[in-house]
């Protein structure tokens, strides 16, 4: 089922690890990646999201954990 957020990501073609503001919208207050049922992303886009978030974490653009 196509969803609003998924259309949005398709509009971007791919998620970029440098685009922290967009990535933050898919994280919960603890900094964890939201599950697919919450993000509403397609499977390929959810994988791209996970990849981008992990890259951003490594580059200290996003925290690994928020206490």
């Amino acid at each position, binding site marked *: 089922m196509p969803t609003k957020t998924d259309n949005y990501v398709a509009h971007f073609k791919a998620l970029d690890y440098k685009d922290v503001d967009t990535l933050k919208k898919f994280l919960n207050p603890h900094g964890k990646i939201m599950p697919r049922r919450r993000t509403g992303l397609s499977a390929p886009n959810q994988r791209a999201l996970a990849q981008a978030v992990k890259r951003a974490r490594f*580059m*200290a653009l996003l925290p690994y954990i928020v206490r």
Partner: protein
Amino acid sequence: MAEMSQTAEVSSQANISESRPVYEVGFHVVPTVGDEGVAGVVDQITSALGNAEIISQQVPEKMRLAYTVEQAAAGKRAKFDEAYFGFIKFAIDREEIPALEQALRANKNILRFLLIETTREDISQAPRRAVFASDRLEGETIQKPKAAAEEKAGEVSEAELDKSIDALVQE
């Protein structure tokens, strides 16, 4: 003729450069180099790229890190809470990547770097739209049937008014 061959050469070079894979290196420069020293570090990176075709780059800007990053230097661990973050997108031959990685790792002024394969098109430069701002689209889709309904109502009222008046008069 000479011009012709030159243009042919240029186009063949362009083809070669376009067939090369596109990479992007994001990096943090240590804050100890200062605002003046950052340009020097970027020059070191670009010189390490060699004959790569630079597609785009961002001048490093000072930013606060999401967590403290440690760097071992001269038997001591230096801790950094901020760094200059920049990136360079370039096309280069695949064989030159290990040497580039080594050069980046050897550079003490680079706190951390991320080398990824990417596409030539710039993702981040695409027109921005807020994630949940697609409410605007919803508004449009709701408006359409409304407008249609209004038009219908107008048409019906004229024709049916006449009919109903006639019917009333006849009665």
